[in-house]
């Protein structure tokens, strides 16, 4: 095992990093919007909407992501009507399927985080806003959303971090992400430890960066809670 070999592996893996980053970032963004919709359904007060959202969360949190991914990638493609539908160009694409299934899964976890954050907004703040004459969207934009956002951040940052880890599963649906390239190097060279270790270190570094970024945002958003510098 020479250092040159390890450096070669490092650059091969680095070339695969964009795929992992794309799947991860796209699914986190799409998942966040879906989660907001689900949270809205849960707190809408409508029995039907909240039951649907509850069932969604139960199914997607109660089963492994791997089987969800396979249902979407292999399962849906087995139906003729899906292959003839407008969605087929999307559903036959491994990248789109992987992103979609990661987004659907994180939406379920995130919506529970958002719901908890929403429930944690002190009722007094909402009452005070109403007493000042705010209502509807203005109340949400000025009072509820900023407080809920700050409360959601710690749990949401671990969800986003767990998504970088989940993105490794896309290697099982033919995408050339960090994990599948590491496995291919292992297969081609019969070197077991080095490629997997380097890939693991890359995921670890990525997660450390994400954690740092969230900690920074959290710090900036809670300035009013720190003792004032005199």
């Amino acid at each position, binding site marked *: 095992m020479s250092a040159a070999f390890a450096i070669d592996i490092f650059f091969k893996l680095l070339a695969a990093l964009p795929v992992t980053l794309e799947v991860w970032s796209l699914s986190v963004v799409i998942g966040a919007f879906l989660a907001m919709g689900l949270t809205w359904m849960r707190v809408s007060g409508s029995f039907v909407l909240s039951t649907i959202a509850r069932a969604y969360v139960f199914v997607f949190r109660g*089963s492994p992501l791997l*089987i969800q991914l*396979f249902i979407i990638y*292999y399962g849906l493609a*087995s139906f003729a009507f899906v292959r003839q539908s407008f969605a087929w160009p999307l559903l036959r694409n491994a990248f789109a399927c992987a992103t979609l299934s990661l987004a659907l899964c994180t939406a379920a976890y995130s919506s529970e985080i958002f719901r908890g954050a929403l429930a944690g907004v002190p009722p007094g703040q909402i009452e005070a806003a109403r007493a000042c004459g705010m209502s509807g969207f203005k109340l949400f934009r000025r009072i509820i959303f900023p407080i809920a956002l700050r409360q959601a951040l710690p749990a949401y940052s671990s969800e986003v971090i767990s998504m970088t880890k989940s993105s490794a599963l896309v290697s099982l649906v033919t995408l050339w992400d960090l994990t599948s390239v590491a496995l291919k190097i292992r297969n081609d060279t019969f070197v077991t430890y080095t490629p997997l270790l380097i890939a693991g270190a890359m995921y670890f570094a990525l997660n450390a960066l994400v954690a740092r970024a969230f900690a920074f945002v959290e710090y900036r958003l809670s300035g009013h809670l720190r003792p004032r510098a005199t």
Partner: protein
Amino acid sequence: MTGLDVFGFGEGGWGLSFLAGAAMTVLVSAAALLFGAVIGALAAWGRLSGNKAAGALSVGFSAIFRGVPELLVVYFVYFGSSALLTAIGNAMGVTGFIGMPAFLAGVLAVGVISGAYQGEVYRGGYLAVARGEIEAAQAIGMSRFLSFRRIIAPQVLRFAIPGLGNLWQMALKDSSLISVTGLAELMRVSQVGAASSHRPFAFYIGGCALYLIVTSITNRLFDAAERHATRGLKQQTSER
């Protein structure tokens, strides 16, 4: 075959295979949770011992296994331990490849991940035990082991039950990744069925439904365990 008869128990039905797969999933996850409990207890001990080296080791361990993809850990443990076994075998004069049994590799991989999380759960549980109770145990002359057995461990376990429930769910879901090693658990059975029948949707939906059944039943068990463990605390909350 049409409709739901692939899940039947008769000839050509996959019912029994599915049930066996679900049983294997539960078995491998339970073994991983137990193995993780040992690892987690050691990690929590390292953090709480006050020893700097042990603390740093435990912090590093839990950071690594919580920051690296589960799938990568499964591959690393499976391929890594097989390579290690082969090397040891060759050194002892056995030629050829020696594979790690998939069940053991799965328990090791999922267990180590679970252990990294369980360490935090136990540490939180220990810190929640009232200091006065530990002091009282010392004051009446209990040895360290006795106070651990009688005072600390029961309460840490009680505080840890909700967290352990979450980690059990996580172990169940992580166990699906062991399918890449060929262990015939629920995910693998669904895959094999899907491939041999050319009906992937039915098989994956069936597997998914079984996962949901297993998670909801075991969730109930953890809820019951929590109710049982906190029955002594009920009186305070029952009067509203």
